């Protein structure tokens, strides 16, 4: 019928005008309702270099292995006991296993009979690894430097990073030495070979 044709044409044109209007109004996407997420990202992401991140991780959890030969042992043990507490520096994992360690603390006089064992211990540690020479005997042979059986310093056998003087060094001196080592680790870079 005529009216049917006129009505359906009107409906058609009204609907197509609606589609055209919606199309004209939807030229740009509606922004996601996640403005709150921006704040979170700002608070939880930080941008840094690979070097800084890696060095931060390495320096704050140095796991020592014990090369405990003589008297300085007991100042190291005193430093790890409840009063001075190296656990707050991430260092309380004092296992006697070189495979899981990255810091060799050389505490005590080294004799030539013992030297091959220290070399073997150092070789068994995985990279990256650092060495602290603790005490006068470890630096230069100390009070025993003129003896026929004493190695004048651990640096004849293994490369040493930090020297801590004292006979024996107080636990506070040991903690200052560890802090020096941490400053040294901060300056390292994976692009330069150690």
């Amino acid at each position, binding site marked *: 019928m005529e009216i049917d044709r006129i009505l359906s044409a009107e409906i058609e044109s009204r609907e197509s005008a609606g589609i055209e209007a919606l199309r004209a109004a939807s030229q740009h996407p509606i922004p996601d309702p996640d403005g709150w997420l921006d704040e979170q990202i700002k608070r939880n992401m930080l941008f840094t270099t690979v070097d800084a991140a890696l060095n931060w991780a390495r320096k704050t959890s140095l796991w020592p292995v014990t090369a405990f*030969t003589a*008297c300085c042992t007991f100042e190291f043990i005193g430093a790890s006991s409840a009063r001075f507490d190296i656990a707050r520096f991430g260092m309380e994992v004092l296992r*006697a296993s070189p495979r899981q360690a990255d810091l060799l603390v050389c505490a005590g006089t080294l004799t030539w009979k013992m030297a091959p064992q220290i070399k073997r211990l150092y070789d068994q540690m995985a990279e990256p690894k650092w060495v602290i020479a603790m005490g006068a005997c470890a630096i230069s042979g100390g009070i025993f430097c003129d003896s026929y059986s004493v190695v004048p310093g651990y640096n004849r056998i293994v490369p040493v990073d930090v020297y801590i003087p004292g006979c024996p060094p107080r636990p506070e001196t040991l903690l200052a030495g560890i802090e020096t080592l941490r400053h040294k680790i901060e300056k390292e870079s994976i692009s330069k070979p150690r």
Partner: protein
Amino acid sequence: MALPTEPFILNIGPLHPSTHGVFRMRVTLDGEIIQDVEPVFGYLHRGLEKLCEKYTYKQNIPLTDRLDYVSAINNNWPYVMAVEQLGGIVVPQRAEYLRVIMGELQRIASHLLAVGSLMNDMGIFYTAFMYMFREREKIIDLLEMVSGQRLLYNYMRFGGVSMDIPTEFLPALARFLKVMPGFLDEYDSMLTGNEILLSRTKGIGVMSSEMAINASASGPMLRGSGVKWDLRKDAAYSVYDKFEFDIPIGQNGDCYDRYRVRMEEMRQSLRIIHQAVEQMPAGKEKLPVPLRLRPAKGEVYTQIEAPRGTLGCYLVSDGTEKPYRCHFRAPALINLTVLRNLLIGQKLADAIIIFGSIDISMGEVDR
């Protein structure tokens, strides 16, 4: 069909957390049972006796500290006694009492470490060790007040001690003496009746008194086996004849008895310190001695009761300012003579406990 087996040599190497220093044992094992033990010494041999001939008498006092580094004050004592006998040097009474007070404080600190390490070996994994180190830190504070050092004090001199006590020492010592018996009671309540400790130490490492005497054991090793021999009573030196104290003796000679002897000796040391503080006279802490001391020609042997046993010093002087020969009778080395006999037939886990109960200090064993 029987499974073929063969013995296996295990190296309990020089760097091992349970060996109390750089000590090595080559153990031949048949399963878990030990068939043979070969101890290897010398990883800390620093040539101390040869160095003593190179330095003057006074320069050797810090060298002697490094012998048994766990109880350093006691190591000076036989050496200064030997030089005083050769040089005719008189020690004032106040200095003798000061030596006794510091020596007994050091004995308590050394026994705390010995018992703590033994507990470590049993697997407590540092709990008891940390508790005992808490007390050891109190004693180290007292000794630091007097000598300025924490571990190797260099405190004794010929003719006395190096410095008199400061004014704050005696009140601090009184506070320590008041709280220490409470801490010893705490350890007793945690450890002495503990069934794990009893099952791991009773009947282990039994050494009869004949074997102990034949093997020249001394100190708690000898007293744990029932032999009543303590140099502070049987060959009294310094002013020990003026004090009243008991000598704890064990009955069976096993590891438990040696542990109990050490715990009891700590209580007796507290008694001696009380009496020494009461009896100590005023006076000088040392008399003047020539800087380059030249004792008379001769030889002398002096001995004291160190925490690990009889520590002796054999000194030969040829009239010059350096010793001609200086030898230290090290109790830890001689106590280790009997190690092989005690370990054969035991299981490996018990071997660590027996070794811990002998209580050695490698600086003394190897010198």
